[in-house]
């Protein structure tokens, strides 16, 4: 095993010359050092420091592992492109932040898989670290490479690169598995033996312990994978952190020197969202809904601000304004923070007048822009995707926002959603035009000129583990046609339509839906120079196209083909808790335009999570009128 020692002296001259040196120096406020530990994890975010530092999963998992006696966790990030090249040229390996020790010298390397465009960065990081890219090529001295996060819900295109995956919330599962690795290593167990033991732990998926079937056999067998050994589960079920609601909302964090995204105190007020939008992977992945109490949240915010010195706190979750006590929480925080200059922010606005009221509670005098996400332009399509929002909700929100002083509003839509017709596309134009009319009516006559309404349009990407997982993406040419139809249908010049040429959406769709053959594609693309695919200035379309040709994958077909709901998908051995039957039933309801209730307000719709796992929705107070919908 590589020696666990600081390489700072060697790195320092490179850091001094790098763009933004503060990405690479350690010693930020809140860092934890455990030199006495005998087992070490490096948690890696596969992109640069400024994108990964504030990542919630990274922060929570580092804290959880550091809380274990004798175990230490440090952070690692992919250096920016200039530094990746400088490291290679100097023959230096990728190092952790805290100890500046080579990743190779850690017992385990955890890599979070935040989105579909991080795959080549994972190979870039492993290669820079000098860790063999393939699990099969790793020896007794190499670290165990463990993946987790959203893309672990379809881990197949990453499978050969990882020794194991954590499916679901890692708070308990990761320390448990690391403890097992440590104990077995102490007893001198060899790598294959450790992997077999990990596979028996709930939520741990060890891809090398399965045989991959061909398509016909998979459809026959009802799964693409067949366990190769006893004790290896045919289906890995996601883990849910049962103690979430009662655990402190103050999660100790590191205060960076460099400017990073989400550079503020982030307090997770609730986890999960049961609204049931049929395109949304997060909504399926993080069920059920668990709220932390108002007391917990308010005290945690005060504690976190005192410990970090931040001047902004964000109450994070998938839908913070759905918290049953949100009005109380914001009122109490406003009172406690009066006169301190500390701002409160909510990551997204709920699309109704109540959402605007809540935004008003945190906006103070400064009213920038509001963003809402109706997602679709007609009621028919909004019902099909189960976006339970009416025109009344949207216009109520617009009236309230512009009367309260906002002058800018951005509306998010998706194009290419299953069942979308030209009427739905024109519906977007009609909706934003009418929103513009409403907004102008709601402001004083002399301010009508300052009203700005814009529509931001993204291409639908089918995601694994959602009711729309079987639905194909529309082709780039068709997307261009629909966007131009939309542009032509908007009747006001003042309403802008933003559409970013979605070259990456195709890769996202392929990565989201492909099976293990996708790993060959990723590796080939990386070998042809693809990295930082999520960065417009780095995305190399040609490298992916050439790679696809080289490995014999038809990208367009992989992204665009629609399949019957009976088709067994390549991730059917990974369960997010919502059953495949329920997902198929939801897809059928979409076709009929039928809504499904949010089970935190209405009845259980039997997605199945609460049947298979010892968890339930856990609300701090009943959701209902008053605070919530």
């Amino acid at each position, binding site marked *: 095993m590589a020696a666990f020692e600081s390489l700072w002296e060697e790195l320092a001259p490179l850091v001094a010359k790098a763009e933004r040196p*503060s990405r690479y120096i350690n*010693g930020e406020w809140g860092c934890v050092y455990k030199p006495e530990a005998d087992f070490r994890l490096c948690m890696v975010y596969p992109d640069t420091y400024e994108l990964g530092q504030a990542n919630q999963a990274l922060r929570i998992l580092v804290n959880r592992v550091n809380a274990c006696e004798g175990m230490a966790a440090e952070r690692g990030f992919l250096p920016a492109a200039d530094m990746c090249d400088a490291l290679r040229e100097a023959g230096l390996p990728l190092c952790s932040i805290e100890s500046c020790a080579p990743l190779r010298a850690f017992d385990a390397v955890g890599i979070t898989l935040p989105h579909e465009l991080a795959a080549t960065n994972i190979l870039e990081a492993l290669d820079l670290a000098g860790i063999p890219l393939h699990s099969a090529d790793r020896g007794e001295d190499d670290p165990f490479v463990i993946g987790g996060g959203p893309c672990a819900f379809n881990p197949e295109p990453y499978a050969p690169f990882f020794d194991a995956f954590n499916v679901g919330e890692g708070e308990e599962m990761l320390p448990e598995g690391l403890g097992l690795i440590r104990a077995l290593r102490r007893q001198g167990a060899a790598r294959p033996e450790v992997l077999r033991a990990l596979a028996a732990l709930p939520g741990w998926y060890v891809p090398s312990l399965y045989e991959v079937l061909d398509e016909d056999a998979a459809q026959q067998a009802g799964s693409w994978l067949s366990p190769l050994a006893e004790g290896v589960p045919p289906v890995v079920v996601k883990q849910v952190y049962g103690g979430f609601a009662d655990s402190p909302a103050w999660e100790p964090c590191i205060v960076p*020197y460099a400017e990073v995204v989400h550079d503020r105190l982030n307090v997770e007020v609730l986890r999960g969202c049961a609204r049931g939008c049929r395109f949304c992977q997060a909504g399926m992945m993080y069920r059920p809904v668990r709220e932390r109490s108002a007391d917990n949240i308010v005290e945690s915010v005060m504690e976190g601000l005192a*410990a970090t*010195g931040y*001047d902004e706190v964000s109450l994070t979750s998938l839908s913070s304004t759905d918290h049953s006590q949100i009005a109380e929480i914001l009122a109490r925080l406003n009172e406690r923070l009066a006169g301190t*200059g500390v701002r409160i922010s909510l990551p997204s606005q709920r699309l109704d007048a109540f959402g605007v009221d809540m935004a008003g509670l945190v906006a103070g*005098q*400064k009213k920038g822009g509001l963003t809402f996400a109706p997602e679709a332009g007609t009621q028919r399509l909004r019902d099909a995707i189960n976006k339970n929002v009416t025109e009344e909700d949207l216009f109520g929100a617009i009236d309230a926002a512009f009367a309260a002083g906002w002058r800018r509003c951005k509306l998010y839509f998706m194009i290419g959603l299953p069942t979308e017709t030209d009427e739905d596309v024109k519906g977007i134009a009609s909706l934003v035009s009418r929103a513009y009319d409403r907004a102008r009516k709601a402001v004083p006559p002399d301010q009508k000129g300052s009203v700005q309404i814009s529509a931001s349009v993204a291409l639908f990407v089918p995601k694994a583990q959602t009711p729309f997982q079987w639905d194909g993406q529309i082709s780039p040419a068709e997307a261009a046609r629909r966007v131009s139809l939309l542009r032509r249908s908007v009747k006001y010049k003042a309403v802008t339509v933003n559409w970013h040429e979605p070259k990456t959406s195709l890769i996202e769709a392929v990565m989201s839906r492909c099976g293990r053959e996708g790993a060959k594609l990723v590796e080939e693309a990386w070998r042809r120079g693809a990295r930082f695919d999520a960065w417009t200035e780095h995305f190399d379309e040609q490298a992916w196209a050439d790679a696809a040709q080289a490995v014999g994958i038809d990208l367009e077909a992989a992204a665009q083909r629609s399949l019957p709901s009976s088709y067994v998908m390549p991730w059917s051995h990974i369960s997010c808790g919502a059953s495949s039957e329920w997902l198929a039933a939801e897809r059928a309801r979409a076709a009929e335009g039928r809504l499904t209730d949010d089970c935190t307000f209405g009845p259980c719709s039997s997605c199945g999570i609460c049947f298979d796992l010892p968890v339930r929705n856990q609300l701090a107070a009943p959701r209902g009128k008053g605070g919530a919908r």
Partner: protein
Amino acid sequence: MSDPRLFRLRATFIEQGRLALLSHLEVAHTLERTVRRAGLPYAVSQGFSPHMKIAFGAALPVGVGSTCEIFDLQLTEYVALDAALQALQKASAADLMVQDCRYIEPRAAAASVAFPFSTYRVECADPVEEVQVPASVTVVRKKKPKELLVADYLAEPFAVDGCGATFTLEAKPTGSLRPDVLCGCCEFGSPVVSITRIAQHA
């Protein structure tokens, strides 16, 4: 700047080790957070986006360390100096440690203009015998090359001693010559290891 009801605290701090690599803006953000962590009763501006009333001294180039950086903070209440210092030190990183603080007059000049002269120490790898200083240095301002006469800025010449030298630069209202840029154009007969600001004076 001169609200007579406020107390004006001037603190000095060091910037050393890896933290010498921070930009002026990064240091500024860090100090604001330090003040909040210290729990001092800082004043907040009125208006659309209220912010802490804090002001910083002359910027230090990335990579140059210091033993004498300055920030001025306005407080709404008087805090005993040793209590203020203790609170700030507890909230500071070791390489960005507050060294001392004192109250200054409400009308005293801002930290950024009060001390136009800065003395720097440049350390080299081996003993230095003499420093060859160019007559002029070309810098890029607003994407255009501009020639600066060293004599206009070098208030005190390089004094050689041991493995390095000491020199003083004057900041002009029209601009300044960066110490690292100057040293990069000088010949020391040995590689430069570090540059540190060791004094700021009027």
